[in-house]
């Protein structure tokens, strides 16, 4: 069996397959279907400084080979997370990574500072790219100065691995990646959802309560792949690929484009065993190609 372990800054992952935040709850929703500990890591639902109810219904629209969501970071806030959710995550022995978001730099810092105290949280993923909140979220990730400011502020209070999740809703994602690298990010993950829209022609109304929402699923894979390739060439820190990954072939494509690890998102909704199939499929690919180490795939694209 080939070596599947990869390294993200100080994080040693048993394999490169993780789950994307917002698509995997807190892991336990999937306990009936898979061995969550077999994953390289899990990215849990975004946590903000205070309780958020999220956006009104309807929050979801299916689109060709994908879906739009407008959940709006519904969660009960960092203090609830520390008291009620964190103890439930202790049963997982792989890398548990918290996704951190908020509306203000101070809010991001507060959540990051509290996450820093939680021994079992191996890293945080700074979500500066959520398109579904009126204030903050994507706004921080769409300009170099604001992305730099929030990354730098969190870096000052967070000691462990700091991943910054990038927005594809920008002109040059590579420039934003370079900015957060310079501000202290240890890795970048991309892409978050693309801003999209669905209309009910019969009613002449938008489907989502928020009119626009975040597009995910296989429909966005080519865009995500292109952006991972661009960013991997622009930064020295590890890149985590996200965007429409449903199969082992998808995951391998992202690694060849330069990703050290990948996250599976919307595909978890269609088949909760997707991640397990991807891990097995990567191993099969390595064996078929007589490759002993999955790290040999990273950036291995021949152009």
């Amino acid at each position, binding site marked *: 069996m080939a070596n599947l372990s990869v390294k993200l800054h100080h994080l040693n992952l048993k394999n490169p397959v993780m789950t994307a935040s917002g698509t995997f*709850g807190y892991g336990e*929703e999937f306990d009936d279907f898979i061995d969550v500990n077999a994953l390289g890591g899990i990215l849990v639902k975004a946590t903000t400084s205070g309780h958020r109810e999220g956006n009104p219904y309807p929050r*979801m629209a299916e689109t060709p080979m994908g879906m739009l969501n407008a959940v709006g970071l519904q969660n009960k806030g960092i203090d609830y997370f520390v008291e009620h959710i964190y103890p439930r995550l202790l049963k997982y022995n792989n890398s548990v990574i918290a996704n951190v978001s908020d509306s203000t730099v101070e809010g991001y810092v507060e959540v990051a500072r509290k996450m820093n105290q939680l021994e079992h949280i191996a890293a945080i993923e700074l979500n500066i790219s959520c398109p579904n909140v009126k204030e903050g979220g994507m706004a921080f990730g769409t300009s170099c100065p604001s992305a730099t400011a929030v990354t730098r502020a969190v870096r000052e209070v967070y000691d462990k691995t700091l991943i910054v999740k990038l927005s594809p809703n920008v002109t040059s994602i590579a420039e934003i990646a370079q900015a957060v690298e310079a501000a202290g990010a240890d890795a970048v993950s991309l892409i978050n959802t693309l801003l999209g829209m669905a209309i009910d022609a019969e009613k002449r109304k938008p489907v989502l309560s928020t009119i626009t929402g975040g597009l995910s699923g296989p429909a966005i894979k080519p865009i995500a792949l292109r952006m991972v390739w661009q960013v991997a060439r622009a930064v020295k820190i590890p890149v985590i690929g996200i965007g429409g990954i449903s199969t082992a072939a998808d995951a391998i494509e992202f690694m060849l484009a330069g990703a050290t690890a990948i996250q599976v998102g919307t595909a978890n909704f269609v088949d909760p065993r997707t991640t397990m199939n991807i891990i097995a499929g990567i191993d099969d690919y390595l064996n078929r190609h007589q490759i002993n180490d999955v790290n040999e795939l990273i950036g291995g694209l021949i152009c």
Partner: protein
Amino acid sequence: MKKHLIDFKVLSNSSLNYNHNLLELSCDQPLPAMVPGQFAEVKVDNSPATYLRRPFSIHRIDYEKNTLHLIIKSVGEGTRKIAALQAGDTVNIMLPLGNGFTIPQNSEVLLVGGGCGVAPLWFLAAELQKNGNQVTMLIGGRTEKDILLAAEYSQFGEVLISTEDGSLGQKGMVTAHTVMLQEKLPFSAIYCCGPDGMMRAVSHIAEKQSIPCMVSLENTMACGIGACLCCVVDTHKGHQCVCTEGPVFNSKDLKGWSAETEVGCSINK
């Protein structure tokens, strides 16, 4: 209750009316325990335009034959693909999902189903009957052709029908049926599934007479297991997922469902 992913084989597919099909399914393993009101998420195969599973109420369970029945309403490409399954086809289903109805004992209860809202009421009626309850069933629809399985439901108790055009049963909406207009309804609980407006109107009548009303909600779902938080409903406890906290709710827990909230009542909203 443990959730399962199971490959089912289609035993039969029968047409109920112009856009509803009844699938009878079986599997190699013993069916897991389920309660009335829970639902299943069915994978859509061979459909390039769709991606997500489709949720359906558990219509009927036969543990002796190890069979599951689902009523499929065709509304889009995904549901049309499922409705087109043929005997011998295999389909992957995630179940049982969500929370179901509470089953009392030795009570007199009313079940109200609008259109394909009758789907979860078969399993419910069977369990109610097993527990000594006297079941009255009120089925509503726009026209005669929208009334599903009325004859079959009569095995559980009295079946009453109302149609908006009067083509079958009493003319009008379910809330205008004689049984609902009694000064003192003789029921200790009402169970309701159908269009949103119908359920709200029924719950108002129940609330005025201080009768608990359980409603089974429908919502646009992605995961079905509480991971994505897409299918929320506004409750007095905040946003709750229909897939995990529901689909069955006590109507008094739903925000904006109070009888003081003015709403229309339409079976086919």
